[in-house]
């Protein structure tokens, strides 16, 4: 049995230690917001936060997440500025990659609340969106940054 902490809830799963976090989240905990797309850490659709850092759950074995705090798209509050900005700017098309994209962006903004254009591209080049929502993702990030600034002022 492996214990893990996901979205502030404690779970125990009976899987081998080399099973990746992605399949535990999806098939064992039924948290299907985290997506499978490449399985090799190339596309970012499976991105979650592990101790606050954006990581690819499809290449992280369970042995590495014991005792760590995991947050998935379901655990990111619905009033989080990135989620709100994504709705305001109508970022998703098919939307399949977006949970991973949102987790990537929210981790970036928690470390760099006002990222430069280069810092954004540098981080966002780790994710793939086949619908081509990149211009809307950029817009969404700008809007989320503004929303966060307003929240800080309050």
């Amino acid at each position: 049995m492996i214990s893990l902490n996901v979205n502030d809830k404690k779970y125990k799963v009976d899987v081998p230690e080399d099973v990746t976090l992605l399949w535990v989240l999806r098939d064992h905990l039924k948290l299907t917001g985290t997506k499978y797309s490449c399985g090799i850490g190339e596309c970012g659709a499976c991105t979650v936060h592990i101790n606050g850092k954006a990581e690819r759950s499809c290449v992280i074995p369970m042995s590495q997440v014991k005792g760590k705090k995991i947050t998935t798209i379901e655990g990111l509050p619905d009033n989080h500025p990135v989620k709100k900005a994504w709705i305001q700017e109508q970022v998703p098309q098919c939307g399949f990659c977006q949970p991973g994209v949102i987790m990537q962006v929210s981790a970036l903004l928690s470390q760099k609340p006002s990222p430069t254009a280069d810092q954004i591209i540098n981080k966002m080049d780790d994710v793939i969106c086949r619908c081509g929502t990149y211009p809307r993702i950029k817009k969404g990030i700008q809007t989320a940054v503004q929303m966060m600034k307003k929240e800080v002022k309050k």
Partner: protein
Amino acid sequence: MNTTISRRSFLKLTGLTIAVSVTPFGHTILNASEKKDLMTFNPNAWLHITSDNKVTIYIGNSEMGQGVLTAQSMIIADELEADWKQVKIKQGPAADALKSPILGAQITVGSASMRGFYEPLRKAGAAGRAMLIKAAAETWKVPESECKAVLGTVKHDKSKRSLTYGRLCETAAKLEVPKDPPLKKEEEFRYMGKPMPRVDVPEKVRGKAVYGLDVNDENVKELKDLHYAVIARPPVYGAKSVSFDQKAAEQVKGVVKVMQIPQGIAVCATSTDAALTGKDALKVQWDKGTHPDMDNAYIEKLMMGDLDKQGAKVHEAGDAKKALGEAAKKVEATYYIPCVAHATMEPMNATAYVQADRCDVWSPNQNQTGCKGMAAGITKLPPEKIHIHTTFLGCGLGRRAFADFVPEAVILSKALEKPVKVTWTREDDIRYDRFRAPMTHRIQGGLDAQGQLTGWYHKTSAISIMKPVNPRAIKDGVDFYCLWGLWDVPDSPHWNGKIQYEIPNLFIEFLMADLPILCWPWRSVQNGPNAYAIECFMDELALAAGKDPLEFRLQNLKNNKRASRVLQTVAEKAGWGKPIPKGQGRGIAQHACFGTWAAQVVDLSVDKNTGKIKVHRVVAAVDCGPVINPGPLEEQIEGGIILALSTALMEEVKFADGGVASDNFHDYPIIRMSETPEIEVHIVKSTDKIGGIGELGVPPLAPAVANAFFNATGVRIRRIPLTPKVVMDALKKA
């Protein structure tokens, strides 16, 4: 979004039900409120107004990010004069009722959702509004002309009375449907033409949207004891398994069954991770298949060789050979467009549950009619016992209109007597994709002394799209699916898929490349590759004629207002003819298909030391007739441009030893944010017939890039993708 709507849920509602039946001869609007069995109907759209004051709209097209649920509902809600807040939108089941009037099947392809449903949906909404007004007038005993519908309420201003649609629906349900309900005038539109937020966005942002891959026993209650399967598939075309270790796979914890099926060796387990571990343990040995020598060079050589053979005649007007013989100037060029993969972010998958008296399939598909047929074929159940539940699609690009993922799930569920979800790994998804058909083109063009086009001889070879799936669709050796954008049959349901230029002497010839590679429509079908060849060649002709590429195009489109207008619009917006920064190149291209006209201008620069192309800006103009939802329209063009740029710069499926060698995003690269240019989309205001939009961003882009590359370097490369290596090789040769 409820992904498990059954036909029964139609029947639970009472109130006013309007259905529209569309045939090639016109449409009929029906009052379906009293009908106990809606199966006896054959309408194409449904809307229910119920006493709880809700308007529920069922949409038969698949939602893959194009915003079809929102746009079709906007049309109905607008004509119905409903309050958007009272509208509930649901994905309809697979039903004859929801077949596309244009395509004859319930299938979301060919940019046809608006082309097929715009008129009928308007009528359906308008009929509902007329009936509700009549119901109110009869209730109050006042003339209908004194009543008006405003946001879900009928009002009688004189007596200051009003009744909601919810209160009126049962009275209205007893009325006859008006034959020709009055439609709103454009200035009365409440939703159409205005940007409306897409209804599917919030749940997608929250991670709550259910895609095919997400179906499980928590979101679909019938799926208790769901099993998960993956399949070891032949690594090369025509390969058969020689041996595999079934025992080793069965010993993996969680593995329930290992089964040989026509598609390969399936491993069923209690979770995907266990199935994947089981698949690895199989250690399958395969034979060498049917084409052990096939690789990229083999494919290109064979298809180039085709151009020296005689093909099937597609079209002949005037005498192209004679015109070329008499031309003041003659130009000839040969182009190659390789295979590209759909590579949707959600890999192919399906979940099936076969029981004695019914079969349910949950899948992200673009072809409910096809899914139903495939499931019926395997289960031998009558069609009414097959229930297709369409989930959200993690991108479509045409791939999901070929539902080869459905039979696997049905076969395995039938054998296991349990619900089974089959997941394709990314490697499966790329290797067993049905690619965009590769093409070679050889074009000869003739100009008179004034630089006017006089003759065009066009020979093209492609892998046939339809031959493996519907050989009857091929007439006299011609597969028109490969030719859209160059030529099409008369009265084609795909509208204006022909070369737009006015060419007095035109000859088109087609060859079917004899290769085992399976191909299938890929966003815009072959309009992309055909536009690439035509529009690159137009620039080559313009150069020979000594004319500006824009001027040369307009000169050969004199009677084509819509093509000219998109070209002029894009040229003006992009500043065509004005100086551009040193070292940059600018290119233009236009294309028409699916009832819409599109043009683009591309600005780029080329790093002559590395061969890397940087596209700075793409300006696009589209004329699709009436606009329903402008936001998603722009997104579709933007997304199409980015997708096409990916194919122009980097995508090419690699083949080796008779099979597909590319298998994941590390060796099949896809465009990312850093390579995405600034994009401007300009919608040309137009009152012409409504056209499609989902595929129109793609065709003009690759030729506009190639033309801009020539403008920047003076070097013409006649193939894509323009990878740094291809560019460096060409620059060195020049």
